[in-house]
């Protein structure tokens, strides 16, 4: 069993080393930059109301400079990582074997193709999970640093780009790439198709889940900003208790927008409270994870039926 894992990892040695090295670099850099941001001490400046320290302007400049020049690019890398990991580890798994003809050796030695598939797939999927999970942790840390005074465990800031969902994104991409590889039997077309279909698929599922979650929104007083809530919609509350949007307000009080000051009606927000972050995150992870699982299972069927090429 250990030998089998060792051999599978050896077959993907280049991709593994490259992706692990890149992830390690991004991980260390993210923690370092997060530390730098915290060290500026900008936290007290980032409040909605109340007194702020005198030197906030210069602190602000320093803080934003680090965020723009260092944190921002890192977020870019972190966004790419789960896609790259899933594609480059999952894509060649079966397609390269078919392309190079080694499936003819493997499937004539091993009477059980299912066992062969598991011996190849499980270690690589585990590797994808570990690498992307690390990326998710780094993203969490960095997000916390750029959102001072926000408890990111209870906030929707950066939803989908940090934490558990990074690993799940990687797994979905990997599962899709493995499956497409079994169908096409060619590495480059697999990577291209998996990139396109995977991105579209994940975006689609995310959108569907967002719409579904929006149906669970609740009303809270005031603007949503700064509480970590997920914004769904915003209304004005009229004196008679009705809720109207901008158009409704214009009907009710046409002059409201003409006046110089802000319309003097209380704002009410339709939100998903930040406290539900973990719950929503987990639910999305389960849906995407289930899709990944189905794809991996479907690939087992394809492997049983297809010619070795």
């Amino acid at each position, binding site marked *: 069993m250990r030998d089998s894992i060792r051999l599978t990892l*050896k*077959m993907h040695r280049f991709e593994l080393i490259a992706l692990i090295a890149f992830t390690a670099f991004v991980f260390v850099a993210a923690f370092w930059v997060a530390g730098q941001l915290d060290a500026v001490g900008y936290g007290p400046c980032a409040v909605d109301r109340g007194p702020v320290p005198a030197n906030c302007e210069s602190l602000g400049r320093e803080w934003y400079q680090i965020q723009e020049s260092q944190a921002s690019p890192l977020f870019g890398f972190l966004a790419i990582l789960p896609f790259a990991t899933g594609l480059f580890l999952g894509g060649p798994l079966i397609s390269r074997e078919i392309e190079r*003809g*080694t499936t003819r050796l493997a499937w004539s*030695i091993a009477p059980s193709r299912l*066992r*062969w598939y598991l011996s190849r797939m499980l270690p690589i999927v585990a590797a994808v999970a570990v690498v992307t999970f690390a990326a998710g942790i780094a993203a969490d840390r960095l997000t916390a640093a750029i959102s001072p005074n926000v408890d990111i465990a209870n906030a929707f800031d950066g939803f989908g780009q940090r934490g558990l969902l990074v690993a799940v994104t990687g797994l979905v991409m990997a599962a899709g790439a493995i499956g497409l590889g079994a169908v096409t039997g060619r590495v480059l077309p697999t990577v291209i198709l998996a990139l396109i279909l995977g991105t579209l698929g994940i975006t689609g599922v995310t959108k569907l889940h967002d719409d579904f979650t929006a149906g669970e929104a609740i009303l809270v007083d005031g603007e949503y900003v700064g509480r970590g809530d997920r914004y769904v919609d915003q209304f004005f509350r009229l004196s008679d208790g009705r809720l109207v949007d901008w158009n409704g307000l214009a009907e009710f009080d046409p002059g409201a927008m003409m006046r110089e000051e802000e319309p003097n009606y209380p704002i009410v927000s339709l939100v998903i409270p930040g406290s539900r972050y973990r719950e929503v995150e987990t639910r999305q992870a389960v849906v995407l994870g289930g899709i990944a699982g189905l794809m991996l299972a479907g690939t087992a069927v394809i492997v049983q039926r297809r010619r070795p090429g």
Partner: protein
Amino acid sequence: MTAVLEATGLGKRYGRRRWALRDLDLVVDEGSITALVGPNGSGKSTLLKAWVGFERPTTGTLRIRGIDPVRNRGAAVAVAGYVPQAPSLYRELTVEDHITFAAYHRPGFDRALARGYLDDLSIPFDSRADELSGGQQAQVGLALALGTRAPVLLLDEPLASLDPLARREFLQVLVEAVRAAGSTALLSSHVITDIEQACDSLIVLGGGRSLLAVSISEAIAGHGIVTGDEPRPIGAQVVGSFPSSTGERLTLMRGLAGRPATLEEVVIGHLAAGRPDRPAKAERKVAA
């Protein structure tokens, strides 16, 4: 004689029109080393693959030691030692890795046996497959198949692109191993001298069908060559015509006629018969 490999009415179609095999009947007896000869596209590879379940027949049936690879692929694979057409080794893995791989995936794999063959040839175990010569890679493929201790060996063009010395060494290992284990081997090859050295039986395929299936001694004893326009004995059966290296037309005959045919000429004559409209045209044009 028990038949370890059988095909009955076997047909395989790719796409909508291309039949690689068509209504093929053949039998390979236990203990024989049989050669499979035929043009590319005649279905040799397809046939070998069918017995290990890599190809599903369109029509007909086949059996390997009585097992139907369509119904019971795992069992069919388990009685076969298959040497795929090169290249089939994992480039980045070493020879030792390949043995480990086979031992992990194949119940009953005999590591010592496989290692023994490679050791005798001084093939380094810690070399990556892509560092080995073509001949060494072929020997690794053979050692892995022999290591399964399968009673039936199926070899798909194992000697292609190997130099004469590498081919000789491969055949020597194969013949010795098969004789020692009492197993059966079917190998496809294009080189008749190799077939003469290693095989006792011969199957010629053409147009997806079996054109000839005999022992080699019968093949040679049972055919003759008539040159050019020499008179043919009455009752002798014409097989086919083809050019000689000097440009004369040779005709293969069944039975006592002309001079004894070489095995190569027997094969070529039947191949020529297997595609009826080509040889005549080729000679006419070229002679011009």
